[in-house]
């Protein structure tokens, strides 16, 4: 039997402590241990981007991260981006531009876009599409997602 490990992390500003097997993926930790099922699991090998979260402020695939590797780090998930009653800014832009249909990929897109808006030049559609290219959506054809990001990027303005 492999030794279990303690994992202390902060998710959306709330501290959590669990003792888990080292092989537990961060995506499963969030969903099964903490009940935060907003983070979706698509391909589970880093291709689809549905499980994207922020680790210390930068986007990361939670299916390619072990929970124990996030020990001591700040994790942000889609639950931190708004609520059913009060959508966050990115969620509102998605609603306004029809940036989702089935919604399965949406949490990953939202978290990737948080990173994009904080750190990446988004001055034209090419840059927007390049930054979104690690996330797969099978419904929208991406155009409406690009439209949403274009509006968000315009609000943000150029990076300092």
């Amino acid at each position, binding site marked *: 039997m492999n030794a279990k490990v303690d994992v202390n992390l902060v998710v959306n500003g709330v501290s959590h402590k669990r003792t888990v097997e080292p*092989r537990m993926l961060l995506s499963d930790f969030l969903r099964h241990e903490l009940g935060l099922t907003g983070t979706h699991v698509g391909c*589970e090998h880093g291709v689809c981007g549905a499980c994207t979260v922020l680790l210390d402020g930068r*986007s990361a*695939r939670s*299916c390619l991260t*072990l929970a124990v590797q996030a020990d001591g780090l700040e994790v942000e998930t889609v639950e931190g981006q708004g609520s059913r009653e009060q959508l966050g800014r990115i969620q509102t832009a998605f609603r306004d531009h029809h940036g989702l249909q089935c919604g399965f990929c949406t949490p990953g897109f939202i978290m990737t876009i948080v*990173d994009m808006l904080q750190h990446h030049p988004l001055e034209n559609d090419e840059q927007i599409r390049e930054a979104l290219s690690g996330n797969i959506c099978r419904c929208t054809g991406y155009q409406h997602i690009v439209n949403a990001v274009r509006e968000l990027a315009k609000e943000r303005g150029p990076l300092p």
Partner: protein
Amino acid sequence: MKPAPFDYVSAESVAHAVEALAAAAGDGKVIAGGQSLMPMINFRMVRPSVLVDINRIAGLDRIEDRGDRFHIGALVRHRLTASDPAIARHIPVLHEAMKNVAHLTVRNRGTFCGSVCHADPAAELPMMTLLLNGTIHIASPSGERTLPAREFLLSSLTTALQPDELVTGIAIEKLAPGTGWGFEEFARRHGDYALAAVTATVERRQGRASNVRLAVMGVGDTATRLPAVEAALEGSAMDGPAIADAVARLRTGIEPNSDLNGSADYRRHLAGVLAERVLKAAWDRAEEGAST
């Protein structure tokens, strides 16, 4: 899929990591960014009994300027390599290549050294390390050793690294000022593994090619330099006939595999097309006598 069980060691130092690998008696695996390893672990294609995490080792996350080369530490993420201004200035061909390495989110985690250690035959960084006369710095139980990249990269997903060794960094040479360069890649989807890529550098001396370097990937078991083609171009005028001759030599000098994405013949043709573009671009960029 979920990973098979393993024990986990968060290494506090290089020595600690090597110790843990030695204790694993050949069944340990190093994890840095994990962007190639974790998929294989999730699929259970890789089932280490011990996973040695080097992410918390201090001092490995830097790109150091060492005069004629850069030393890229084992925890340097793709994001840093892609955005480092000194790399962009001294090795513009690597700056260009980085645009093709994975996607934003993967670049936040994936590492330069990890990509070279993974040795995927269709990954950019093993090829770039070969082009830039890279030296692999390795910590082993008996001390430090170094290997030239061409002796490190053995075959598909296979390197000369022993199970109880850790790559601590990779040194790559700066280009001489005025060196011309080219990089071309063809992938079905941007950021995905490429069908083929070609890269080259060349210096211009009295209108003739000097210090020609040419590397390819995706068309064999590992990325490779093509010394015979480089030698044929050395001293040439880099005009149409010289480049056509180089392309012909390249096509006979590689042995691509056939797979779902393309036949061997298709890949051989593609590599030639890319090489022609790369050599022309490199020559156009080369500045006369700039390095002398």
